[in-house]
C-alpha cells in the first residue's frame, strides 16, 4: 500500500518555494529577497522581514542554497544562490503547490468545471 503525503499546513513550504524561485534566477541578499517577494506578489504575501533569515539558513544547511560574502558599495553582505539540490527541491515544492492549488480550485468549482459554489 502506498503511503499518502498529508498537508498539515497549507502555508508550509511557501516561504521556501518563493525564495528558491527567486534565487533560481539570480543571487540575492536578505533585504533584496524580501523586497522582491513583496514586489512580485503585489504585497499580497508579506512575511516578517527578519524571519526570512532562519529560512535561508535552514535551506543553506540542507544544501539547497549556497551563501557567500560579497562586498558591494563598501557593505559586506551575504549573498545566496541555489544549488542543484535546491533546484530539485524547487521542482518538488512547485509540483506539490500546483497539485494543492488544483485541488482547492476543484473544490471551489464544485467538482465540475464552470460550476462555482454559490
Amino acid at each position, binding site marked *: 500500500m502506498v503511503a499518502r503525503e498529508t498537508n498539515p499546513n497549507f502555508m508550509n513550504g511557501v516561504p521556501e518555494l518563493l525564495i528558491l524561485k527567486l534565487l533560481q534566477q539570480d543571487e540575492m541578499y536578505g533585504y533584496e529577497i524580501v523586497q522582491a517577494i513583496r514586489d512580485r506578489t503585489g504585497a499580497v504575501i508579506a512575511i516578517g*522581514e*527578519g*524571519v526570512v*533569515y*532562519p529560512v535561508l*539558513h*535552514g535551506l543553506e544547511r540542507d544544501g539547497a542554497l549556497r551563501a557567500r560574502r560579497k562586498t558591494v558599495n563598501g557593505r559586506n*553582505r*551575504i549573498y545566496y544562490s541555489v544549488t542543484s539540490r535546491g533546484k530539485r527541491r524547487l521542482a518538488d515544492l512547485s509540483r506539490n503547490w500546483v497539485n494543492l492549488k488544483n485541488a482547492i480550485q476543484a473544490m471551489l468549482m464544485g467538482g465540475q468545471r464552470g460550476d462555482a459554489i454559490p
Partner: protein
Amino acid sequence: MATRFHELRERLLRAGVAPRHVRRYLGELTDHFADLTAEEQRAGGSLSEAQSAALARLGKTEDLAQALIEQSRFRSWCARAPWAMFGFGPLILLGAAYLVACLYLWCGWNFFLPGTDTPFGTLLAPTYSLANMYFQAGKFYYYSAPTLVGWTIGIVAARQRLKAIWPTLGLGLIAWMGATARIHASRTAVTGHGHIGMEFFLLGHSGPTLSQSLLSAFVLFALAMFPYLVWRLRGTFVGTLTLMRGLF
C-alpha cells in the same frame, strides 16, 4: 547596534542556539535594519521615525527569536547534551592536554637526558640552559593545564548562557582529575626503552592522600572557576545597575 538586538541575542543564547548562528543572524538583521532605515529615510521620515518603522518591519523580538529557536538543528551541542559536553568533554580535553605534556616530556628526555633512567630530578644544568628552560616550561604547562581547560569550559558555558550546574560539574571533574593526576617515567631494564605513564583518580599507596587531593582540588577548582565567576558577578552587577537606573 549591539544594544538594539541585545534582548534578541540573550533570548536566542538562553534557548540554546549555537553562538555562531546567533552571530550570523544578528549580523544579517543589523544589515537589514540599516537598509530599511535608509529606505524609510528616502521616503521622507526623520532618522528616529525611520528607525522605528524599520524595527516594526523587521518583526517583534519574540517572533524573530521563535523563527530560529523552532529549528532545532541550530541548537548547540552544549544545549542538546550538556551532561555529555560537561561530564565527558572536560575529562577528554584534560586527558588530551596531559597527553601533550607526556609527549613533550618524552621528547625532552630523549634529547637532553638520553642516558638517564628517569627525566625527573637528574638534570645537572645551569638555570638558564636550554634544557632547564625546556623542562621548566613543560612543568609549567603540566600544572597549568587543568586551570586552562577549566577556563575554556567556563568561557564556553558563559558564551552559551548555560545554567551554572553544568560548568560547575565540569570544573569539579577537572579539579579532581588534576588533583589526583600523577606522572611516572622509567626505563625498562630489558629493552632500555623509556616509558611514560599517567594515572588519575587513585588515592592511597601510589597516589596522594585524600586530604592532599581535596586541598589540591579545591585550589584548582577556585582557579578554574575564576573567569566564569567574574562573568556571573558582572552579569548580576550590570543587571542591578540597569534596575537602579530604571528606578531613579
